[in-house]
């Protein structure tokens, strides 16, 4: 039986990698990949903690929900990225600066 710590360490690494990608990548697609990594890190956490619920399998069920939601959000996000690209002719998130005054 693999102890819980191993899952959590892998999950934390995954989250950190995702976060790093989200904050530093110069490509919006890669930022989205970072976001997906962070979501999957949380899914891993849900599944790992799910071993303590052997009756209802709430962790696993929630993980399924999150995977579906992540897929949907990626679809939407990619749509947005396409529109943004049309507007800015760029996928570099540093170019999206129309929020500043």
């Amino acid at each position: 039986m693999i102890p819980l710590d191993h899952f959590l360490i892998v999950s934390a690494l995954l989250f950190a990698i995702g976060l790093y990608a989200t904050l530093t990548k110069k490509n919006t697609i890669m930022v989205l990949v970072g976001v997906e990594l962070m979501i999957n890190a949380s899914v891993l956490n849900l599944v790992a903690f799910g071993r303590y619920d052997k009756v209802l399998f709430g962790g696993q069920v929630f993980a399924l929900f999150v995977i579906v939601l992540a897929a949907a959000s990626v679809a939407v996000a990619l749509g947005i990225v396409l529109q943004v690209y049309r507007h800015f002719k760029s996928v570099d998130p540093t170019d999206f600066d129309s929020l500043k005054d």
Partner: protein
Amino acid sequence: MEQFITHKVMLVLALIAVIAPFLAFLTYALGGKRQKSGVVSTVAIAISLLLSLFLAISAWNRELLHVRYDWFTIGTNTVTVGILVNNLSLVMLVLVPLVALPVHIYSFSYMKGDTGLRRYWMYLSLFCFAMLGLVVADSLFLLYMCWELVGFASYLLIGFWYERDAAIKANKKAFLINRLGDLGFLIGLAILFSEFGTWDLAQLFGHDGLIAKEGGADASYLTWAGLAFFLAAMAKSAQFPLHIWLPDAMEGPTAVSSLIHAATMVAAGVFLLARVSPLFNDTVLMTIATVGSITAFVAASIALTQRDIKRVLAFSTISQLGFMMVAIGIGQIGTAIFHLVTHAFFKCLLFLCAGAVIHEIQHQKEKHKLQIDPQDIGLMGGLRKTMPSTFVLSLIGAAALAGLPLTAGYLSKDALLIFAFEWANYQAGFWVFIPLLLMIASGMTAFYIARWLFKIFYGQNRLSLSIGKAIHYHEAPVLMRWPMVLLAGCCLFFVFSYNPLVFEDTWLLNGLERTDLLQRVNIYHTVIPAAINSVSIVLIFLAWRWYAKGKYPLKGSGMLYDWSYHQYGLNRLYEKGVVKPLLFVSGALYRFDVKIIDGLVLLVANLVELSGRLAAWVDRYVLDGAVNGVGNLAQGIGMLLRNGRKGKVQRYLLGMLIVFLLMIIYANFI
């Protein structure tokens, strides 16, 4: 009850008589430039005359008519306004329109063709209103207002021909000297009001009035009040040494001179003194008598040598006013008023005659284009033949002025002189100088008026001689002649008394004085008239020989002659002693004003400006600086904080992460 109604009706009539000329004045004032005919004025004054005659007949020697209403209140003293009609006012109420009506009619012809006719009638009506108001006013305050108004009307009429420099100078002089007198009046008013708290004539001077009770008033104050009123009368009635304005006032139209500056307005001073006579104590009375006698003498001596036809009459007026003042001073109010009335008639007549002569000579001057003074009696002469009516009328006027028997002037002048001698009997010895001065003045009067008459009407036609061309004079027009005839009628004795030689029977005198005074108590009543008239007749004969026959023995120069001709040098004295110092003082004050006062004001202004600038600086740089500083600080902080936000999405995310981590650290470890 019936008595009450008649009283009321009479007062209303008196009021209408006063107001009628005022309405005429308004007609001219508001009527525009087309109102040029004198009919309105003349009708108004005729109405006044009729009403006042009716009043005089029905109210003579009755109890006084008096009505008054509250006007305004100062503190606890209420000033009233109203009408007071007693015998004194009745005399004046009849006299003023009776003299004014002939003058109005005369003016139709005399002023014909003048460009300022509308102004002329307007001013004349204003004057008549003011004069009538003056005689019926029941309060000294109202009297004072009318007093000022007659002075103002006189000012306007003296300067009627305002394009003449001399007229403007003359009316300025008259106005200034009258202001001096008005000052006296004002002081008198102030003293009376502070002592008694009222100006009502009946309350002050009535039989049981405040003055008669002699309570509550300081005697020295009353002396000052009396002297103040006398100062007012001196200026208005041209008493020495304030008489100098009256001869110059002859610059006005002659009809005006006759009405205002001979018959009525100048007599207002005498009338005022008669009105307030209970106020006077011995000091004031002696002053009045002294000044009056000096005036009578000085003016008569100046009249001896004057060459201007109107100036002789002007000085004669001053002299006669001096006579009236003496009458007031010796306590003979009735005699003063009696002389005032007779003088008004004969002096007005003389002026109108002079006007007729001037009018004719002016006419000839324009016809022949001569360069002469139409008022110089040296150029007249021989007018008796060509202007016989004017001559006869002048003769009547002159006889009345000289006080010859059968004239009204005889009655009043003799009454005056006799009373003066009687009065001197009761005084210390030296006071006899007053009747003596009057005697001499009276003799000079006979001489100068005879000279005036003979120079104008007798002898050769000197104007024809001097230009070497025959000049034919014509008689005065009808409209000028008949008014003079009316006045000449009033100069005769039968208007005043059935007895031509004895003044004691005069109804006017009996109406104004207590009759017990009017007895022939001593020898004066016979000797004085006889003496005066013999002296007068001798002097007139002398004048006849000198001026009519041309046997003039003197050389017409010399110190006394010059002294008299230059009016005792008084004008020069005033010029040097009063006008120049006043001008100097006013110049000095002007410089003081410009240099010192204006300098101070400018200094203060500069200081204020400086402090203003300082305040502005403080405002701009200190107060505004603080406010702006706060604003700038906020802006600066805002800018500083804004600098981190560059629109980089990932930076925002990093910021959120850091904050999140800080919150976790804060929550769990601190």
